[in-house]
């Protein structure tokens, strides 16, 4: 099942080794590469109420799936020390985009980025953003894959102003339409 998940819903999910059924860590944060709009990986914390940040990271290529109740891995060996990560495991990007301004190509400010929306499953990717705090109100917009984000601003096509949806179901429909070229 592929679900749309807010970044804050992914944070806190257990990381489960499916070869043993053990929870080996929990997701602390998403490492997001704003240039390519892709999920690079996850930072991790130890499990528990006072779980402290772990030095290791989980590259997205090493995960099996991002589910609604857990992020699964095939083996605990895939959790990587960032200093010794093989090139194919290197985690790109580490930007906090929440509170970035959301502006149309015509220069109309719609609000600010509140969160990223991830399509889960075996190939997790950022498919949109939750926005709020501006004249456009609170809602969800799809990602414009033709352009990246700067370090402070998310620029969207003018036409996306009409694609602000109030729930993730509406966003999922929009993403489907965009991918079909509608």
């Amino acid at each position, binding site marked *: *099942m592929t*679900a749309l998940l807010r970044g804050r819903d992914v944070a806190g*999910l*257990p990381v*489960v*080794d*499916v*070869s*043993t*059924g*053990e*929870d080996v860590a929990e997701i602390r944060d998403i490492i997001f590469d704003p240039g390519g709009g892709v999920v690079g990986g996850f930072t991790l914390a130890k499990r528990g109420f006072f779980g402290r940040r772990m030095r290791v990271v989980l590259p997205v290529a090493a995960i*099996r*799936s*991002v*589910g*609604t*109740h*857990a*992020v*699964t891995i095939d083996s605990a060996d895939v959790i990587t020390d960032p200093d010794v990560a093989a090139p194919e495991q290197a985690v790109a990007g580490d930007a906090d985009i929440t509170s970035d301004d959301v502006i149309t190509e015509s220069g109309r400010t719609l609000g600010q980025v509140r969160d990223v929306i991830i399509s*889960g*499953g*075996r190939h997790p990717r950022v498919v949109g953003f939750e926005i709020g705090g501006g004249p456009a109100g609170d809602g969800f917009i799809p990602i414009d894959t033709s352009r990246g984000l700067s370090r402070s601003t998310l620029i969207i096509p003018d036409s996306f102003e009409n694609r602000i949806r109030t729930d993730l179901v509406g966003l999922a429909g929009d993403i489907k339409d965009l991918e079909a070229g509608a």
Partner: protein
Amino acid sequence: MTRLTQLLGQPIISLSDAERTGRVKGVVLAGDRVVGVHDGNGIIPSRAIRSFEGDTVTYDGGDVERSGDADSPLGRRVLDDDGDELGRLADLELDAAGQVVTVLLDDGRAVAGQALRAVGSYAVIVHAMPDTTLA
């Protein structure tokens, strides 16, 4: 065919001396097979057990070495390997050799035993397949 809920608590008797050595306290699963039962003193490997289908577990007790620990996985969360929770483990149906035939969930649904991947302290893991759920 038996169920884990029936197996737990059954007396365990050694065939070598007809002594009762304990009761089934837990099981060890490797994939979709029971590979050992805990009798309160340690794990008896399934290869020494005659059958799982009686109302008493009998085993060839000659040179069984007990080690390790095991508990009951009943009530544990069941996750598919895509990270989606299916429910809680209500029971396992086992054949005479300890092969898991069916994984029963707390909402009445069932998953084919061959989909069982691992039983850990956090979760019971099953393969994510469109046809995993039987009913």
